[in-house]
């Protein structure tokens, strides 16, 4: 098909995968340590809003990015406290964060920036074409004029895989999500690692949110994540709770979105194409093809004092 011959579709697939892959990997960190995380959507919104807000206030998109990470981290820390220290219902807590973040960002957008929204002069993060690679035909086009965060994401995918599966800390994090009691008896601090997992998840989700507001655009709009946090959840499950799998699923989902845009002119409904990620997730969960099985202690609070 001619569509696939056009590198543009791969270019946009990659770009659309970023705000899915980052929170999906973030969710992977959280759930691998045993905390069910549906708060990605809300934390993305926080990252998106505060990224653009601080970018405007300070005139530096980089400071905006830093603040997005800090505030995303703090939000996820609040979530982590409730989920780990209080043993509150993790799904309910995640919903609370999502509703709160949607409200707060919409509220602040209006009260701080007024009706017209964030000013068009707000700086955004630079787009980069990889020198050297951009000369290669076809492949070069894919990496032409992408946001710097696209490359950051690729680095994060690799780093996350290395961290979770090849470092001592990664091994410990996984053990905590599988059998916290066993980990505790060999001297591993379960709570500390769970906090770390959730907060890393928050940082990556916030990064994904900031990509939308100051990576692609330089503005924020109400509910700008538009459910990407939930698709990221789907990508995490479909990717079997691994960074590489999450990235692969994000690419697949990003591709179905990119394809939807291309095909819209041809009379194929984008609505139907957009169902693909969700349908695949259900299929993966129910085990029709290669069943996705969550970490054994995912969602179960752990009380070290019993």
């Amino acid at each position: 098909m001619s569509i696939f011959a056009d590198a543009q579709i791969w270019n946009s697939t990659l770009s659309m995968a970023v705000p899915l892959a980052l929170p999906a990997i973030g969710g992977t960190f959280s759930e691998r340590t045993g905390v069910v995380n549906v708060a990605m959507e809300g934390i993305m919104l926080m990252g998106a809003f505060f990224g653009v807000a601080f970018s405007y206030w300070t005139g530096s998109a980089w400071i905006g990015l830093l603040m997005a990470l800090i505030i995303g981290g703090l939000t996820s820390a609040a979530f982590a406290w409730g989920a780990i220290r209080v043993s509150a219902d993790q799904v309910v807590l995640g919903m609370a964060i999502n509703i709160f973040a949607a409200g707060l960002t919409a509220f602040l957008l209006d009260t701080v920036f007024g009706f017209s929204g964030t000013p068009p002069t707000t700086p955004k993060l630079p787009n980069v074409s990889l020198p050297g690679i951009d000369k290669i035909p076809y492949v070069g086009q894919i990496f032409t004029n992408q946001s710097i965060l696209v490359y950051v994401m690729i680095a994060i995918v690799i780093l996350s895989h290395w961290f979770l599966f090849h470092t001592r800390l990664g091994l410990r994090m996984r053990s905590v999500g599988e059998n916290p009691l066993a980990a505790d008896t060999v001297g591993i601090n379960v709570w500390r690692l769970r906090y770390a997992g959730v907060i890393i998840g928050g940082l990556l989700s916030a990064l994904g949110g900031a990509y939308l507001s100051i990576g692609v655009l330089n503005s924020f709009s109400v509910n700008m994540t538009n459910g990407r946090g939930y698709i990221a959840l789907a990508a995490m499950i479909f990717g079997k709770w691994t960074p590489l799998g999450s990235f692969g699923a994000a690419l697949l989902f990003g591709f179905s979105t990119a394809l939807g845009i291309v095909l819209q002119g041809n009379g194929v409904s984008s609505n139907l194409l957009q169902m693909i990620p969700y349908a695949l997730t259900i299929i993966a969960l129910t085990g029709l093809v290669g069943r996705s099985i969550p970490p054994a202690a995912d969602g179960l609070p752990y009380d070290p004092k019993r």
Partner: protein
Amino acid sequence: MKALRSTFLGPIVATLLAIVIGGILVSAMGYNPFSVYGSLISGAFGNIPSLGNTITASIPLVLCGLGIAIAFQSGLFNIGADGQYWVAAAASVWVGYHFTSLPGWLHIIFCLVVGMLVGAIWGGIIPGLTKAYVGSSEVITTMMLSYIGILLARYLIEGGPMQEPGSNPQSPEIVQNTQLPYFNQTLMQSQLSLVAVAITILAAVVAWFLLYKTTIGYQLRAVGFNQRAARYAGMRVTLYTVIALCLSGLFAGLAGSVQMLGVDHRLMDGFSSNYGYTAIVVSLLARNNPLGVLLAGLFFGALTTGGQNMQIISNVPAALTDVLQGLIIFFVACERIVPQIIQWYRRRRSLRSGVAAS
């Protein structure tokens, strides 16, 4: 009475705490919190039209909330009421404009029944069966099906078979005699049909009756509280898991039907209503008690309309009410920290007095 107080004390304290934090937030933005909350309250209850709007807004929240409450009472989490709502809405609208020769009352009942059935199927079959037989988390399956449902409804009117000829992505209007009557001009302004109100109250009573007064509800609750004891008592746990999710979807479907017949009259874009999510808050706040859902739904309906009026009067964005909602759930979810804090405080005090004594 004491039990009742301790049951609802938590949600009330959580709400007050959220209101205080919301107040601090609006103060920080340079508004007077008292006038902001004043305009919120008067916007929700201040005059007949706003009271009408409040009730109208609360109807879908109550109906979805009832469904979620039934699931919670059965030990299940239906997070996908939104999709069930929209799929059912689409089905009732289709029935509403497709058949034209039925008598009005029969046609209305037909629409409602189809909506409920479709909602029940959407919410119950796949999540219920996969939960019962392979143990897939119903949180994820209902959530994913919810998005599929919303996309399906959107597809139906964006190039799909239900799109009205013309450029707008919307369905044809349902025939006049399926639209729930408004009775008078004031109610019409608020789009408040007393029939819808009656259906809602009836639904709450039915849900309450079902849960507490029937053998089905008894078994649902037994399965929800303690699956092993339910199995010991001879109950069919898998069957009741499916029934619980079907019933949950049925009420969400009823919400979609009633909203179409009573307010919207056609399927049109605006699928990000988030009734499903707000209804979770409604149910949690009501401690999953159907009659409590009625009150909590009214409270959130008031927040919605009050918020809109507040935006007009004091210029404070209506999104403030979402902030309050998020905070309320957060505090309700974290409620169990309270006994821990009390215990910690007591221990510290006894430690201190011990030190003082020695």
